[in-house]
């Protein structure tokens, strides 16, 4: 099984909704949900998602805040807030890729300066994940952290499912090479 060893995927559902939401979206009645409900349900998970993606908690929170602001403006036409929020985060990162890349690198340097060891397996892997091209990294996080299906990832990234396969395959190949070294 592909997801073997994975924890339970983080659900994108909204308690209180009629149905559980997935990114690809079975119908969920969210129009009645208040802004506060959506916020309470999604805030922390969105911050984590963004943080995992950019490797910087401060930036992650900033991204989540911005994503929620945009969702607020468009909420009337947003059927699936959770998916919308994640898509927005991904798009924000894509639009400001260089900035976040810098953030990660600088965070890395700070750690080195602080004599923090980067030898733990997690750090090594995270370092390699961070080094992946943006879309590959996004696909990896969506797949292995959020537990999204390829179709869901394709929706969020804005590409074809086949592209997702390609992105994940390349990413894992890169990571495998890194581990073997």
């Amino acid at each position, binding site marked *: 099984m592909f997801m073997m060893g994975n924890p339970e995927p983080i659900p994108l559902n909204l308690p209180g909704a009629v149905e559980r939401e997935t990114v690809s979206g079975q119908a969920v009645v969210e129009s009645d949900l208040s802004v506060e409900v959506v916020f309470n349900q999604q*805030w922390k998970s969105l911050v984590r*998602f963004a943080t995992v993606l950019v490797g910087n908690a401060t930036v992650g929170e900033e991204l989540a805040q911005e994503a929620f*602001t945009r969702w*607020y403006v468009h909420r009337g036409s947003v059927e699936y807030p959770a998916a919308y929020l994640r898509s927005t985060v991904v798009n924000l990162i894509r639009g400001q890729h260089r900035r976040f890349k*810098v953030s990660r690198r600088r965070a890395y340097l700070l750690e080195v300066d602080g004599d923090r060891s980067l030898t733990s397996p997690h750090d090594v892997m*995270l370092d390699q994940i961070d080094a992946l091209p943006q*879309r590959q990294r996004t696909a990896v*996080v969506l797949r292995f952290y959020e537990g999204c299906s390829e179709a869901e990832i394709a929706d969020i990234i804005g590409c074809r499912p086949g592209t997702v396969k390609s992105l994940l395959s390349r990413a*894992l190949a890169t990571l495998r090479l890194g581990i073997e070294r």
Partner: protein
Amino acid sequence: MGTHTDVQDERITSAVVEALQHRAGSVVDTEGQLDSIVSNGKMNERRRTTSRRILGSVTAIALAFGAIGVAQVVSKRNENLAVPVLSPELLEMPSFRLIPSDGIDDYILQDDMGTAGPSGPFGGFASFWGDASRHVSVSVGTFPITDDLRQSAADLPRSVEAMIAVGPNGSQPSNQPESVMPPMSYWRSENDKFGVHVTFPPDTAWKDQVAVARTIRIGDFGEISATAPPFGLQLVFNGPLSELEPLERWAIWNRRDYWVAAQRPSKVAEKLDRLGFTGFGFAANEEVVVRGLTGSLFKNPERLSWVEKGWTVTVNRFETPNQDPAETKAELLKFAEGLRPATEKEWSNLAQPVDSLLRVSADMKKPTRMVSQTEVAGTQWKLLVGEAVTDAKCVNISVTSSGSGEVNLAKDCVPVSGGPALFSSIVAVGDQRVLVALFNETVQAVKVRGSSDPNESIVTDGLLVANNPEWTYVGSVIVPLVGNDDVVIEALRVLPSEGIDVDAPDVEAPPLSDEEIAALDNEVLDQPPTESLGLFPVK
């Protein structure tokens, strides 16, 4: 048989999952700021709504007056840019705000948000484009200034953060270099206010005709469309250019509360063509566009008496929120009736600025010489920068897109749309030059290098401001204009635009060197959004 993603090595996937969970687990939960989200969201909603309403109103009015082309421009621009035109805060502001000062008691307050850059009415409006929250930049000119005027500027209330001197058409009389006010004088305040737009009319009575704009929050400028200044109404009068011999060249008359510019229609059409607009009604024959802006223009139509009847005259009238359109129309018609041919004396009064502008205009006809070409490896775009034409005080910037042919996006410092660059402009005045460049998301970073010496003097780098995913303000620099004044813009990172084959391999920017990272330490990215970029000298 599995797919590519059915990775055989579970060890890798497990390690990935654990690493990501580890990172997620390190996140300290925060409560978030729902209040801020709601507040910002509501503000954005208002802006969207207001801008649409204003745009619709402007478009409708323009159409009603037959200025179909203008309406198209406004609509097209808004469509292209998807940016609000005017913010509610701007509209709700008092129309004018007098700034008392010793020695100058006749302040005339300008209402137009654009300034006349070297390419005329169209050039200036883009000046205020940029990041909505972090900067303001302008096309500027200078004009002689005396000590008392300088003092009056210094005495501006602290709520005024910036005062920008604007001369006729961005020009500067060359015979008075020592009395030139810096093209952009910047007064910061402790709050987020600044004032914009000081106009020095080109006659000897200029000291009595200082204009100081109302104060406007930083951020509002980002909401002003490049080609949609506070248009309210437009009147267009058509006529042959042959009747306009004196104004075949540029002419600007900047008196008290308005300015008028005349321009060859071919240039207008050329610009509009580049912008992708069609149907603009100036290109059909030899016409001249005279555009008047702002203020109490229509209260003194006789001041436009030098404008010959039969010219193509475009008058933009700022319509206040509560103004009756019929009343505005009546004003416009009254204004039109006041037009008459200019007298010789009137022309002589205009001689100085016209001469100056003539030189600018002539030089601007030079073909652009590319002095730099930077191709970003592995990316879709190339950014080319044209020659700095010293005498013309204008630098042309071209941006090319491989595969789609060259697109002169900023020739003549015209605000542009389409392609990777929304707007770029270099306005050189006196011994300084201000570069404003605004690109969309396809350009992630641009390094701006202005050199006053071909062998050294990298004056400043452009700034990467990426907090707006749609538009990226790249840089505004003030560069000494001495000797070899080429300006080079290098695209450091360009991303493929949307719509490019999604299967194409990812292109990553080359890793930053330690020096580059160190250089970023003081960059704007580290500054809180509410702080000024500090692009300009601070008094």
